[in-house]
């Protein structure tokens, strides 16, 4: 099996799914780039190079460079989805949801329910998330809690190249609208990725480390930090289970609750501000369903309740770090009641 980057895995998935199904189209700002310029087409291949090469094989009718017009992109993708296409629309940075959210949460997400089950909206919105890119307050958020809040949407946060391919394939073949969150700092990470297409079902957490003393739930880039901490603490005979839920909607509640029942201790790592976060959501879930199993208060490692700062030292402080996760694990392990 070949090592591929997260970026390659997504690019390969788009090629494979567009070959497999002529109804799949890619649309967004500079998904190719170069239209109307004096230079070459496919000048960008996506702002971060993820959609490179698609236009060469599939042409401008299926790899659609749009104006900078997020509402029209999201709305057109939603409208096309209920009319027979399976669009993969790109929202360049998730932070831009503010200029197009109506088309996502009021329109695409609700068609099926509002129309009494008669609509299918097979729409994927690929978007980049996450801090650490020195891109400051309007290009660095994760915002997946906001999408997770909306009934009718599915929310996917792959943490590695293997999952990215399987989950994106599932997203494209899925008949519901899916928000597919790609952490910018994961694009160059590598994993073994099969050449063949495969799907990973939504709502199925991956247990990335087995352990019995404490469980860490972590998403996206944070899953890597959690693994790192688990590996370090294993050497000290602290046995850490790491759960990467992979999707926040649907959420694999059973695997999380089972982990709390097995370990009695839970640390949740969420790269987003704390209020109304996925961390709080999971904490609430555990308190409701596994209160009796808890041996220590649930620890939540999140960002502070601030916008994402620009100055590199501040941004580094903003992001949950392995050190903070480790400290949280030690704290719940040391708790004596």
């Amino acid at each position, binding site marked *: 099996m070949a090592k591929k980057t997260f970026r390659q895995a997504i690019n390969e998935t788009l090629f494979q799914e567009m070959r497999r199904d002529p*109804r799949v*189209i890619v649309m967004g700002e500079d998904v190719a780039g170069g239209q109307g310029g004096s230079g070459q087409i496919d000048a960008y291949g996506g702002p971060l190079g993820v959609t490179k090469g698609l236009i060469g094989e599939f042409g401008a*009718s*299926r790899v*659609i460079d*749009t*104006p900078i*017009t*997020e*509402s*029209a*992109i*999201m*709305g*057109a*993708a*939603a*409208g*096309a*989805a*209920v*009319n*027979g*296409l399976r*669009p993969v629309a790109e929202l360049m940075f998730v932070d831009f949801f503010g200029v197009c959210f*109506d*088309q996502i949460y*009021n*329109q695409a997400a*609700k*068609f*099926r*329910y*509002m*129309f*009494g*089950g*008669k*609509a*299918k909206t097979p729409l994927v919105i690929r978007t980049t998330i996450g801090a650490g890119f020195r891109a400051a307050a309007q290009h660095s958020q994760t915002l997946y809690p906001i999408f997770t809040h909306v*009934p*009718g949407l*599915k929310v996917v946060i792959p943490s590695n190249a293997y999952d990215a391919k399987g989950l994106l394939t599932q997203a494209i073949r*899925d*008949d*519901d609208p899916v928000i597919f969150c790609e952490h910018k700092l994961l694009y160059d990470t590598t994993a073994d990725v099969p050449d063949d297409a495969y799907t990973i*079902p*939504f*709502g199925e957490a991956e247990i990335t480390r087995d352990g019995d003393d404490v469980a860490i739930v972590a998403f996206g880039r944070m899953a890597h930090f959690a693994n790192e901490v688990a590996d370090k603490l294993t050497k000290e005979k602290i046995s850490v289970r790491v759960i990467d839920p992979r999707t926040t909607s*649907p959420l694999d509640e059973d695997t999380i609750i089972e982990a709390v029942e097995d370990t009695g201790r839970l640390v949740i790592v969420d790269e987003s501000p704390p209020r109304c976060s996925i961390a709080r959501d999971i904490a609430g879930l555990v308190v409701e369903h596994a209160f009796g199993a808890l041996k220590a208060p649930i620890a939540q490692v999140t960002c502070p309740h601030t916008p994402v700062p620009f100055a590199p030292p501040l941004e580094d402080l903003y992001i949950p770090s392995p050190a903070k996760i480790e400290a949280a694990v030690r704290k719940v392990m040391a708790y004596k009641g």
Partner: protein
Amino acid sequence: MQLSREDLLDSYRRMRTIRAFEDRLHDEFALGGIPGFVHLYAGQEACAVGMCMNLTDEDMIGSTHRGHGHCIAKGCDVEAMMLEIYGKKGGLCGGKGGSMHIADLAKGMLGANGIVGGNPPLAVGAALAAKTLKTGKVAVSFAGDGASNQGTTFEAMNMAVVLQLPVIFVIENNGYGEGTGVSYAVGAKDIAQRAAAFGMPGVTVDGSDFFAVHEASREAVERARAGGGPSAIEMRITRYYGHFEGDPQLYRAADEVPGLRENLDCLKKFRQRVTETKLLEAAQLDAIDRDVATLIDRAVAKAKAAEFPGAADLTTDVYVKYA
């Protein structure tokens, strides 16, 4: 396209059905039998029907909060619509959408829409699907003067021009966005010209003149179908009722609506034209009026008698499959 007698009778039937449907809802709403709130289309019938007479079931329309007329013009089942507006189980959306979300995808009706400016991007998407899949379908976005001020409408128009999509933007300018007049709220007084500034043909028609609407729509639909890209049509019209039922309409002078009903009634104008030119006989139109009255009576009776959805319906149809 010359309208045949059958077409004319069909057009009249659709317009009369809309008028009767809305007048009846006005009465029933006042009696308290209808949940929520409704926005009535009475007075604007020629706009929806004049356009939709140029469309097939395969073509798609996006609609507004004032969407009953678009639904009927596009061929949605009147009884199922009535059930939906009453929130009943047999409604077009199983009682889960209501007046503002009536949709019938099988009839190319992509949904009424509770968000002003909500549907133009969706109609662009429908047109994008038509163009990509080479189905020969066209899409029509019905929007109001209020939506004409929304950024979504501008974005939709620009993208339609950029991608040369088979979509027609119909702006039904009925004089008011909620309780504020167009003369105040629309900066450029000519909405068609504003649409045209995006790079597509834009015309203005008298929305109470079925024949003018039909002709302008025919041109736009033929252009779109032939690959000639988008168009915009501003249809100047009025609404007989308030923004919503129960709206005291204090923003309108006391004599405004009676005067409009007298002088700007698309049904009257239609009847006058087809009878004076001997295209149809008054008796034929009277027969349709009676049929329609019966249809609406039956629809209301059925809707009142029907069951509400059950508790089990609360959580269904959120996803195709939540996994």
